[in-house]
Structures are given as structure tokens and as C-alpha cells.
């Protein structure tokens, strides 16, 4: 009798936990992990006459990994994503610092509200608008010519892609940095001032180290988003040169070659995982002291 009741309370607790935990697990297993695993499996399939055929061949891997166009696309995608993340992080920091430390709560609230707005607008449309801005007859070049400078070519160059990546990542990076900076203990900052640490030195020696985790995460997110974006390199970079995401789409176009596209996808996922791991290790690693 006693042990039965004992068991039933335990069973109740377990059933509760299972019922609470199951929906997320099942949904993400079925609709997220399974498709990705399927993608892994498909890297070993072959394609004949536009038809996918279950197979076990390493041909797709060797073909893609040895292809010169894959290597250059990989190098390009990786470096431009790093550049994007670096520029975004550096350009955003003064703005985030201003909003977090120097403005009134009301102004802070308003500016953060503004920064949420881009999330409610369509990215392709925003990218398309950038096309108009940077076209030879667009606003930027008209202004440059107006003040007697020579026009600049941005569209269909890596710089164009960069403009798109920044359009995509800037609002997010600023918001994440504000969150990181708002988490910095204000007493620490006051203590630094009290010890005659100048404002600039306080930023370097107190604020940035204290907010490091958040700052690194904002950098990592910018990298992740740029690395996977398809729209910016396509519409502003003119896929000149193409990124890995464009390469994926091209492989699909090329005779329905999903297996090769899957190989490209795998290399992207590995890269992102490695980068995230490294960055998070860097972010949390030294704080363990």
C-alpha cells in the first residue's frame, strides 16, 4: 500500500515531466533534426537524369571538396562574414554605448523601439532599396558627383554584399550589445570613475571586459547571419563572386543536384558549429578565472 502510493507519486511526477518535455522534443526531432539527418544521408546519394537515387558514394564529397570554385567560394564567404561581423561590432559599439550609458531611459526605450522596426520589414525589400541607393544614378553617387567627387561602384561587388550584410545584421548587433552593456554593473563603472579612471579608459578596461560575453555573442550572431545569407550576395553582390549559399542554390539548379548542395550545406554547418564553439569558448573561457 505504502510503496504503491510512493510509486504513484513518482510516476505522476515523471508523467508530468514527460508531457511537458515532449512537445518541443518531438517537434524539433521530426521537423528539424530529421530533415538535417536526411540531408547528411543525401550527401551520399547520386543523381541520374534529374532523379535522386539512394546510393552510397563519396563522389559528391570529393567533387565538391576538390572543386576550385567551392574553395574560393568558401574562402570568400568565410572572410566576408568575418569582415561583416567585425565592422558591425565596431560600428555598433559606440551606438550601443551611447544608448546604454549616456541617454535617458526614455530615449533608450525609444531608440530600442526603433531598432526593433527593421525586424518587421521584409529583408528582400530592404536589400532591394539599397540597390536603388547605390546604383550609378542613385542617391549616393548623385551626392558624390554633386560635391565634385567621382562616383563609386558598389553594386555587384563584395562591397555591395557587405552593405547587404550590414543592413541585415546592424540592428541585431546593436540590440545585443545594448543588452550586454545594460548588464554591466553600474557600481563598477562608478567605482572606476571614483578611482580617477577616465571615461575612455573605463570603457576599455571596465565596460568591455565586463560585457565581453554579450559582445562576443553579438559578433558571433553577425557572423552566423552573414555566413548563411542568400539575399545580400545575390541582389547586392551580384553573386560576384558567389557565396556558399549561392553555390548551394546553383548546385540545385544544376541538374537537380541536391546531394552536392547537401555537401555544401554540411560544410557550412560544420563551419558555423566550429565558429560558435570557438567564440563561446573565447567568451566564457577567460571569465572562469
Amino acid at each position: 500500500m505504502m510503496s504503491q502510493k510512493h510509486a504513484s507519486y513518482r510516476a505522476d511526477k515523471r508523467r508530468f515531466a514527460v508531457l511537458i518535455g515532449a512537445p518541443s522534443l518531438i517537434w524539433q526531432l521530426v521537423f528539424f533534426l530529421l530533415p538535417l539527418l536526411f540531408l547528411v544521408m543525401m550527401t551520399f546519394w547520386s543523381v541520374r537524369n534529374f532523379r535522386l537515387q539512394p546510393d552510397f558514394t563519396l563522389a559528391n564529397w570529393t567533387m565538391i571538396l576538390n572543386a576550385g570554385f567551392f574553395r574560393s567560394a568558401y574562402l570568400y564567404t568565410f572572410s566576408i562574414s568575418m569582415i561583416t561581423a567585425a565592422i558591425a561590432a565596431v560600428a555598433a559599439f559606440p551606438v550601443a554605448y551611447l544608448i546604454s550609458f549616456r541617454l535617458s531611459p526614455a530615449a533608450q526605450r525609444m531608440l530600442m523601439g526603433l531598432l526593433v522596426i527593421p525586424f518587421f520589414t521584409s529583408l528582400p525589400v530592404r536589400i532591394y532599396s539599397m540597390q536603388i541607393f547605390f546604383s550609378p544614378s542613385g542617391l549616393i553617387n548623385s551626392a558624390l558627383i554633386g560635391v565634385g567627387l567621382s562616383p563609386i561602384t558598389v553594386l555587384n561587388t563584395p562591397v555591395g554584399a557587405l552593405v547587404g550584410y550590414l543592413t541585415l545584421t546592424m540592428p541585431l548587433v546593436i540590440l545585443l550589445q545594448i543588452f550586454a552593456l545594460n548588464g554591466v554593473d553600474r557600481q563598477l563603472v562608478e567605482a572606476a570613475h571614483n578611482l580617477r579612471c577616465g571615461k575612455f579608459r573605463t570603457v576599455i578596461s571596465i565596460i568591455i571586459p565586463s560585457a565581453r560575453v554579450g559582445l562576443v555573442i553579438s559578433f558571433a550572431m553577425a557572423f552566423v547571419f552573414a555566413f548563411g545569407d542568400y539575399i545580400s550576395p545575390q541582389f547586392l553582390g551580384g553573386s560576384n563572386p558567389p557565396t556558399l549559399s549561392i553555390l548551394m542554390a546553383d548546385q540545385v539548379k544544376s541538374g537537380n543536384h541536391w546531394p552536392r548542395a547537401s555537401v555544401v550545406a554540411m560544410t557550412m554547418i560544420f563551419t558555423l558549429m566550429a565558429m560558435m564553439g570557438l567564440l563561446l569558448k573565447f567568451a566564457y573561457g577567460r571569465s572562469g578565472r
Partner: protein
Amino acid sequence: MSVTILELDGLSKSFDKQSAVSDVSISVQKGEFIALMGPSGCGKTTTLRMIAGLDAPTEGQIRIWGRDVSQDAPWRRDTPLVWQSYALFPFMSVRRNVEFGLKQRGMIAKDRTVKADEWLERMGIAAFAERMPHQLSGGQRQRVALARALATEPELLLLDEPLSALDPHLKVSMQTELVRLHRELGITFVCVTHSHSEAFAMADRVVIMDKGTVQQIGAPQQIHRRADNRFVAEFLGASNILDVKVLYADASGVAADSAIGRLSTQAPALKPVQVGEALSLVVAMDRVEIARSLSGAVNQVPGRIAMMEVMGASITAIVETEGGVTLRSQLSSRDIESNPLAVGDTVVASWDPASAYFVAH
């Protein structure tokens, strides 16, 4: 006639192989006000949580009215708890907080409101029924927490450090109120506290715990008069504790040697002692008298007054003896008036052999 309502029987609890409570046995009578006391980390709160079912005992039984409830879910027990943090539901009005337990017992809305209002009235916070918890002061929240716990009319009320979050002046009045409430309701209170003054002022019996084990159980006066062991004596903090070695012992008393000379006690020494045994001698501070000169009686220790600590109406004279041991004597301000003392005075401290007792090292 006393009836046992709650029995803790060999209760143990460990977290990750770390023992938090070990072999605790307490039996609580119906209508008693019991205080669990001890330094932080002594296991008193874990014991309380086990009674409420929030932690499951690793070993032992909890019996309420003789029935083992140790494996019952917390929501199946009738052991409401008044939380140190009050744990009021922040998004519910005061009234809905108080109604919560009643709702879980299936009481219909109308009756709940009537009942909740009764309790709010009784706790003197009827005016705040519509307020949210964050709009109340600490004392008011405490009353809401009490009303919420009592609204289901339990036979056993658990209190976890009920006064610790209050301002000092509120503490005293709330203390009185808890005692009044206990008397009026006639139900059993089990209260965890780390403060002796609270425990001694409110409880019928006090359980002193250390490192997960019970050190002593007894009525406040009894514990105060005679601690069971050195830990209790030290924890209560109101005694001089001297290291001694037994010289001889017989039915009438014990003589012992110490750094400040030979000291004697009159029977009964708490337990039989052996000649040559190293023990601690405990003398309550308020039993130590101060004279200007030796009078030839036993237990007289000459020394110098090193410091006078004034604590409200009482004054503690700290006497530095020649043996290098300090003795504390608690005097009333009246004593001082009749016998003015100053720092640096040469004095003789002494005590009645009947008021001292031995405990193990």
C-alpha cells in the same frame, strides 16, 4: 493531556551525497509552538521543507497523526508554510492570494471571498484586499502570507524565519502577534529561526540543531539553565565556558582545576564525571557576581575590568583574570548603581557552585 500530532522519526536527507539532515527525531504535541533553531546550514530549513513535502527524506519517516506522509506529494499534505520570502503570487491581488488554497480545495468563489475577507479582517489588512503584493510594506506582506497559510484552517502551521525580513521594531510586535495568534487558534506551530531571542520568546519548546543533528530539545528556560553540550552553550552565547580537569567528584559535588584555579560545583553535575576527565564548565553570565574583594567563598577569581559593554538595561563587565581567561558578568543597571564599576578596577568575580555545570568538551 497531550496528543502527538507530528513525529519525525530518524529523518535523514542528503543532497548529492552531502548530508544535510541526519537522524532527526522530534515529536510535536498538538497545540505546541516549537522552534527549530541553529546556525545557518544546520539543517533546520531542510527539516521544515521535508515536513511540507518539498524535499523528500533519504531515510526515516514523517508521521502526522500517526500516518506516514513522507512519500506524499506536497499538495496532498495539509502543512501550509509561511515563507521567509513570503512567496506571495505577484500577479494576484491580496484577496486572490488568500483565496488560493481554498480554490485548490474546491471551494466555490463566493465562499472563498467571504473566507478570505474574514482572514484579512482578522490580520488587520482588510483595507488592502485589492492591492497587489508589490504595493504592500514588508509587515503587510507578512500578514498576507500568514492569512494565506491559515485560510485553509490547518492543524499544523510551518513558519520559515518568519521575522527575519522585518525591521527591528516590527519584529517585536509581530513576535507578540504570532504568540497571540498561536494562543487564539490553538493549532501547532513549527517555526524555523536562527535567533534565540525569537525562539525563546515565542516557543513552548526549542529544538537546537547543528550539522544536521539535534543537539538539544527542551523548554527555553530549561535549555537556558542547562545546555546539553558545549555547542549549545556556545551557540546560546550567554555563558562563560571554561576548560577544566576533574580533580575529584562525589555525590555532593565536583572540584576541578582550571587556568584560573580550582573551581567547584555542587551536585547535581549533569552526568557522572570521572576524575582526571577534561570537561567544559559552563557558568551563565548573569550568575557571575562581581565584588571588590575576596570573601573566602568558593569560585572566587580575582581580575581587572577590561571593558564595560552597555546593552540596553544590562551591562556586561568583562573581567580579565590573572590566568589569562576572561570572564563575563552580566549585571543590571541597578547593580551598577549600587556598586559603581569602572574599567581598570581590580575586582573579584564569583559564582554560586550550584549554578555551574559541566558539559563535554
